[in-house]
């Protein structure tokens, strides 16, 4: 009798636990239950959005055809991809594709296999160049002693982006000084607003109940927003689409009309109405990629690299670095970054000559734009095909791989060979380029030697003729 009672208790207990788990799964945030379904640890590039399985997967757990290119197509275009999949659509490549299917991103970049993931999300042995470029050992005597796993890891070549590493470019920039005589910087190209549209504090159109804060008004009036005629309502008055929306948002509205409501917070999309490219690129990087997938904003607490504990719960949106109403780009250039990032590279910045010239600029001892900040390298000003200058807000864009930084950033002040050496030096990356490169990458020398040899042969041929 005692035994059957114990059995009953055991059965009831098991059922309670089982139903408890099911009930918890039903009401718990998706993230917690989906985590159980992850087949393996997600890579550094994608872990932030791993709870949005549907971004990459079909319902049947297959891979969406455009999953990779939806986010990465534009950067491949800008990189003038050396190995676009279309290059391999020539049927005569069939035998090579049997060995290495270069038409499929997943051949080299598998996900959820962290134990075999190398830098750049590479999930195959690093000597992959061997499969198609074996002839190099014969056609380039200078390469005879190089190992195939060093092609893309020694600072000489990349699979996709070789815009700063291809032969003609290397040869053209051979012999450059480590420090260029003249710094080339892209100046901010804010359109100069007509004087008529410039706003002053008197013109501020915030509701009376909110317009008493002199500090806010002063901050706003001193910014490019006021100079360009962007009034308070330009950012805070959001259109109400219908009556029900108006009702549901009344609790956060200080003043509402039939068509607009006043919002204390300013959304990413509101900023993006004028700063479109900044918004779009922010959403592509590690700072904004969660917002791009309709997930809660990234916080330093969720980062895989060291962050300051006191910054753990900051939400990464526009305001995280550009707090209103001053939108101080000086703060956003260094202090905003160092307020969260707590790794060796970031912490070493203030001991570098880059930081020194930034301090000189702030002190008015050197020209505007001559300082080097975190943003100079990681959120650089770039020029589009029409000559417009804008700020790249995807801080990962020129780090995949870091040689992308050479033309965009380093060569504004440094020679090509020096830049290649610096970016290939892991110790230098750790100390934030506080010292000179300790190693030399031969690529510029090899390209120069090859072009010189070509020229000698050409002259010899002409002599024979």
């Amino acid at each position, binding site marked *: 009798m005692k035994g059957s009672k114990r059995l009953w208790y055991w059965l009831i207990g098991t059922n309670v636990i089982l139903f408890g788990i099911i009930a918890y799964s039903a009401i718990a945030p998706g993230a917690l239950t989906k985590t159980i379904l992850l087949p393996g640890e997600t890579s550094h590039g994608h872990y932030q959005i791993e709870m949005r399985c549907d971004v990459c997967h079909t319902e049947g757990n297959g891979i969406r055809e455009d999953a990779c290119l939806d986010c990465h197509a534009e950067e491949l275009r800008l990189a*003038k991809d050396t190995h*676009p999949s*279309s*290059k391999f*659509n*020539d*049927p*005569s*490549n*069939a*035998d*090579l*594709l*049997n060995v290495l299917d270069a038409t499929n991103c997943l051949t080299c970049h598998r996900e959820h296999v962290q134990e075999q993931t190398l830098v750049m999300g590479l999930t195959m042995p690093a000597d992959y160049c061997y499969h198609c470029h074996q*002839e190099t050992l014969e*056609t380039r005597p200078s390469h005879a002693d190089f190992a195939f796993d060093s092609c893309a890891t020694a600072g000489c070549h990349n699979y996709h982006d070789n*815009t700063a590493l291809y032969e*003609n*470019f290397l040869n053209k920039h051979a012999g450059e000084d480590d420090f260029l005589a003249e710094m080339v910087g892209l100046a901010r190209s804010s359109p100069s607003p007509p004087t008529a549209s410039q706003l002053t504090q008197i013109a501020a159109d915030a509701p009376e109940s909110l317009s008493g804060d002199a500090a806010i008004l002063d901050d706003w009036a001193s910014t490019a927003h006021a100079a360009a005629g962007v009034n308070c309502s330009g950012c805070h008055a959001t259109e109400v689409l219908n009556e029900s929306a108006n009702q549901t948002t009344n609790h956060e509205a200080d003043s509402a009309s039939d068509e607009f409501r006043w919002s204390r917070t300013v959304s990413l999309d509101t900023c993006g109405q004028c700063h479109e490219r900044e918004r779009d690129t922010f959403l592509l990087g590690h700072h904004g990629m969660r917002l791009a997938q309709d997930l809660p904003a990234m916080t330093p607490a969720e980062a895989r690299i060291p962050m300051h504990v006191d910054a753990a719960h900051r939400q990464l949106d526009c305001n995280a670095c550009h707090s209103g109403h001053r939108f101080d780009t000086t703060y956003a250039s260094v202090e905003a970054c160092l307020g969260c990032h707590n790794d060796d590279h970031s912490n070493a910045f203030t001991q570098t000559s880059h930081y020194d010239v930034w301090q000189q600029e702030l002190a008015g001892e050197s020209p505007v734009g001559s300082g080097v900040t975190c943003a100079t390298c990681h959120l650089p000003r770039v020029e589009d095909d029409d000559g417009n200058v804008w700020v790249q807000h995807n801080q990962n864009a020129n780090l995949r791989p870091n040689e992308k930084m050479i033309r965009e950033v380093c060569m504004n002040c440094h020679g090509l060979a020096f830049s290649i050496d610096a970016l290939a030096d892991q110790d230098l990356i750790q100390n934030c380029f506080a010292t000179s490169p300790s190693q030399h990458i031969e690529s510029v020398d090899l390209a120069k030697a090859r*072009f010189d040899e*070509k*020229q000698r*042969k*050409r002259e010899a*041929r002409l002599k024979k003729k």
Partner: protein
Amino acid sequence: MKFQTKASLSLLGLLCLLAATTTGCGGNTTATASATPSPPAETGIPYQKFADAVHAVMMADRTVYASKVVTRLKKQDAPVTPSEYWEDEEHTIPLPAQMFRMGSELVFENPEAGFTYALKSKWPLNEQNRPKSDFEIQALDYLVEHPDENFYGEEELGGEKYFVAAYADKAVAEACWSCHNDHGNREDNYPEFVKDDVMGGVIVRVPMQ
């Protein structure tokens, strides 16, 4: 409404009559218009005829680019010049061979195109343009020996069967062979090309149904 229907029927009838007389369908005796003609049977274009046709178009475009654009700019000493590194150098345009290759890459990208083509050579300036399959090697050898003929055949690649046509790519403009003869990438055993030499071959592949 009635008028519209009548007009439509008349137009349809006229079109059918035109189709019948121009294609020869229906003979030459009693070509009567019908409101509901049966659609003509699709017989398809023979692989060789299709390959010859697309090759004619691509060569016409290339010739126009080489002679009417590139050569013209050179003759005028224009500030815009053809350059191998056109993507990274200001005031430059692609070389004719690059223009041709870019076109072929666009066709590679287009799954609706129904064929592919590529420019290959036994003496490539870019190693990746060397013939790869046995058929390509055989075809280019044949074209060098028989400059005025084409080379046709079938080939199986990656489990798919293709009709393949190879056409000689000859030195037609002085700019072509002088640039190749003087190029830094040429091997020591590179031929000194002169006018009308076969420098390579255009390979057209059509998947066989």
